[in-house]
């Protein structure tokens, strides 16, 4: 990646997140401007690496759940798949929309990095914040919708232990929900630390947003996958 120029601060921050491979060490100049002692900082690209590694573990967890589901279904003839609440499709729409707003937020951040005037950068910042809030709201809507779906199911007398099919429904939605809550916490972090990180280390903010969005999109895709295996009758 090349250099990033932030107007307003007029600080040139060199981003060395490129050059993976050849063994480039993680000593990056963030925060080295002062003369005081420097705290060890994880280089930005390592956050991305770490996120992909973490996601592969999450992928394995859900792969395990999926294979358990396949095996359990074939193990005996007590599988009774109930009609799932229609609100799940609304939730899916919320989640897909949230991915789009998050991408818009990232686009705003890119504009911010390129912006030449104060007005332009102020606009980009506003758009960035707005999109982030929208993503957050949509995420919360999704979680609320999932809880509502649980509510409707239990009202219909379908509980965790009612049937292996419902067991897997509650298990997978809960496991996904917990992970998505983690994403909401990450977004809250971005919202509340936005002022501080934006002024201090813009490179770090972009990394944080990038990493959070990798996670968020993954959770989005994971949900679509789960919805398919939960609704398709096979």
């Amino acid at each position, binding site marked *: 990646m090349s250099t990033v120029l932030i107007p307003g601060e007029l600080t040139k921050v060199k981003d060395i997140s490129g050059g993976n491979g050849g063994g480039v060490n993680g000593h990056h100049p963030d925060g080295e401007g002062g003369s005081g002692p420097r705290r060890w900082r994880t280089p930005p690209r390592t956050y991305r690496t770490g996120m992909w590694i973490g996601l592969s573990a999450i992928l394995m967890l859900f792969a395990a759940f999926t294979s*358990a589901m396949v095996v359990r279904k074939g193990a005996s003839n007590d599988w009774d798949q109930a009609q799932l609440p229609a609100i799940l499709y609304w939730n899916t729409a919320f989640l897909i929309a949230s991915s789009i707003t998050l991408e818009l937020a990232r686009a705003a951040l890119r504009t911010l990095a390129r912006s030449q005037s104060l007005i332009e950068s102020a606009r980009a910042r506003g758009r960035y914040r707005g999109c982030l809030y929208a993503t957050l709201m949509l995420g919360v809507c999704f979680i609320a919708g999932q809880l509502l779906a649980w509510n409707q199911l239990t009202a219909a007398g379908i509980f965790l232990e009612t049937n292996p099919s419902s067991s897997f429904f509650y298990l997978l939605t809960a496991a996904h929900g917990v992970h998505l809550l983690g994403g909401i916490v990450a977004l809250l972090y971005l919202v509340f630390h936005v002022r501080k990180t934006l002024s201090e280390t813009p490179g770090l903010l972009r990394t944080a947003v990038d990493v959070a969005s990798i996670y968020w999109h993954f959770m989005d895709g994971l949900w679509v996958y789960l919805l398919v295996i939960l609704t398709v009758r096979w």
Partner: protein
Amino acid sequence: MTEALAASEHHHVAPTGFIRKYIFSLDHKVIGIQYFFLALLSVLVGMVLSWLIRIHLIWPALHIWGLSHLSAVGAPGGVMTPEYYLSLLTLHGTIMVFFVLTTAPQAAFGNFILPIQIGAEDMAFPWLNMMSFWTTFVALMVLLATFFVGDGPPISGWTAYPPLSAIADSGPGQNMGQNLWIISIAIFCLGSLIGSLNFIATTLDLRAKGLTLSRMPITCWAWLTTAILSLLSFSVLFGAGILLLLDRVGGTSFFVPAGLMVNDKMQPHSGGSPLLWQHLFWFFGHPEVYIAIVPGVGVISHILPAFTRKPILGYRVIIGCMTLIGFLSFMVWGHHMFLSGMSPYSGLFFSIPTLAISFPAAILTLNWIGSIFGGRLRFTTAMMFCLGFVSVFVTGGLSGIFLAQPSLDVYLHATYFVVGHFHMVMGVAAIFGMFAGTYYWYPKMFGRMLNETIGKIHFWLTFVGVYLIFMPMHFLGLAGNVRRYSAFTDDYLIRLIPLHRFMTISALATGAVQFLFLFNLFWSFWKGKKASDNPWEATSLEWTVPSPPPFDNFAGKHPVVYHGPNEYGVAGDKDYIMQDSPETVSSLN
């Protein structure tokens, strides 16, 4: 390392408060030592449990002092009940596999050594590193708590097969004890996942300039391979644990079959598959074996050249074999289940890759022997444990070839043959790797040398001892001695009791010898000879920094690497070239 450099602006600040420095430390070296002592505590508990197990087998009516205080139900008047024997067996296995074999080789040595070997200031995510240690610590405490709640630890073994492990009233310890066991393992999985994430990110991203993947010490490759195995297998065990816990507390039927009667009570479950647990568990369980042994393989391959004074034979081959073993380990889990009722055809499917593992394993062994051949050997304690490792690795590996064949496994399954096999290759070999690592890196970790005389006595007594304990197990297995029995009252087993007595005495003696090691560890900490920066004349980066290293490892300098770790036996006034030394290799001796 000059003081002027250390004081440069690159120097990052060391915490001064006791808590931030020693308890909730972010420093990978402190965390490594924390892991080391956590594993040391665990191995002592596990060893005492194995003593109790062995004693009960020979003297079932013996009053064991203090045992009645631990559990009035499990050992009334100090005499162990058969159920309590199984409780202790469960905890012996769980503690040893998770908190010793998974923790010490990877998390303890890896944490301390890896960042220095790759020339980094710290692990990629220091905060996560601290979290992974404390998560593991909580997991250990939850597991040890099973001794003190309800009627003791679970009796379902470290593999926790349902339906036994899924039904609360199936025996003592199966209620609260089993719940805590699952929770402990789930917490352990989280800690291990965080840890392996950190290892992979660190190795991929934080290497010093010039330290390409093909110049990394083999230890780093081993820790990387192990971390990948951990990452992909502990996440599956975590999922399996959740399913098992839901079967117990949520009323689901993932693993419990329909119409199950336990203690004359019909269980309210329907249609679950106990085999499903076995598949999920062993999908984790087999890579787990390599999580325990691969760091040992790395440590041996790394240490050997320092004491043979010649490059390791087949550096790339060893790395290839190690990663191949790691890859194959995900395709062989069914060999634990030949007799589970799984299709015999799948038995064949799992048997072939299992046997295939013996190829890379044999190549590794030949490489080690070839590395010794023609070297100028230095018989330090670390070197002797390396040679001991090769010996037990071969012994334990050979019996694996028998077990890998479904037709032979029909006879040998669940006998002492299996116990002998996995103790030799997964237990003893991995522990020899840890001993080699401890004798080799202790100077770097604590700044003093371990006593070599005590070390050599420790080696010889341990080496002979482990063969005396575990070799007879193979004969017991061939004689049809089934594992997990708490007593041998059946007439065909009575004749085997003398052999068991021999093993028990060997186990007590070999265990006692370990206190020599413990004494050496603590005595040398205060009284040992001061260690120089590079007491073994080795080449990798950890020997370029003071012993013990400063807080930020390289005192603000950024090491540059010019060589692989194998420049031994070169011409010149010293016969090795450090990895960060810019001089070129003139000619090999």
